């Protein structure tokens, strides 16, 4: 199977659905995340919600290219249940909003990360990218 080509985020229209992806976060990946941010809370074998979002965004970027000068300007997250390290996670996402302002394209990516039971984390990420910028 060929990985989808990466497309500048500015090119995606509102309503665009990204290809569903499946990924797993290992305990080592979660540990590396916690060490990097300096979080010493005990999460056991669970995935901190913001780690799931950060690593989910990374998974989405197999499809999305960000032009130079792009900025992450907002983040929403809603936790419905705990996700566990090592579980297969399904990622689905779409462009929920798109607007242009002062030479920038403002895109809101809405995505959900769910385990096999369907429990999930939902997130909305706002990205401001230069219109016409090369990715």
């Amino acid at each position, binding site marked *: 199977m060929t990985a989808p080509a990466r497309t500048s985020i500015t090119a995606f229209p509102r309503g665009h659905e990204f290809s569903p992806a499946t990924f797993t976060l290992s305990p080592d990946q979660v540990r*590396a*995340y916690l060490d*990097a941010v*300096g*979080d010493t809370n005990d999460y056991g074998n669970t995935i*901190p919600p913001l780690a799931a979002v950060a690593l989910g965004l*990374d998974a989405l970027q197999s499809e999305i290219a960000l032009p130079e000068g792009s900025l992450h300007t*907002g983040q929403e997250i809603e936790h419905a249940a705990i996700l566990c390290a090592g579980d297969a996670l399904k990622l689905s996402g779409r462009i929920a909003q798109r607007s242009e302002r002062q030479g920038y394209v403002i895109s809101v990516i809405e995505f959900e990360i769910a385990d096999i039971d369907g429990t999930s984390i939902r997130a909305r990420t706002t990205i401001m990218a230069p219109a016409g910028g090369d990715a």
Partner: protein
Amino acid sequence: MSTEVASVIRQLPQSRINAYADASGDHNPIHIDPVFAATTPFGGTIVHGMLVLALIGEMMRASFGEAWSTTGKLKARFKAPTRPGDTVTASASLSREKDGAAEYAVQCATQTGEVVIEGRATVVVSA
């Protein structure tokens, strides 16, 4: 369950930014390449917004445990860049309690008092 939330204070040196880039996969050069970043309007590297936001997640988890992970909601706006070496304080102020949920105004501010993230966090504090 108490509704008090203890602040989290952390310095964010370039080494932590680099570690976060590796852990998250976000290697945008604005965060990790000083030569490239010097050519941008920021004039230098800036901290990942999600790394700064993680302090709010840590703060809420420390105060509410699994309740944060199972019922939490967070809405945040990245208002200004955080620079390598900045010391950031994440804090929360109770806005209201209703129907067993507590809503907080949350923010991250640098050592100069500049608010770099502000938003709202909600967690269920009683069944």
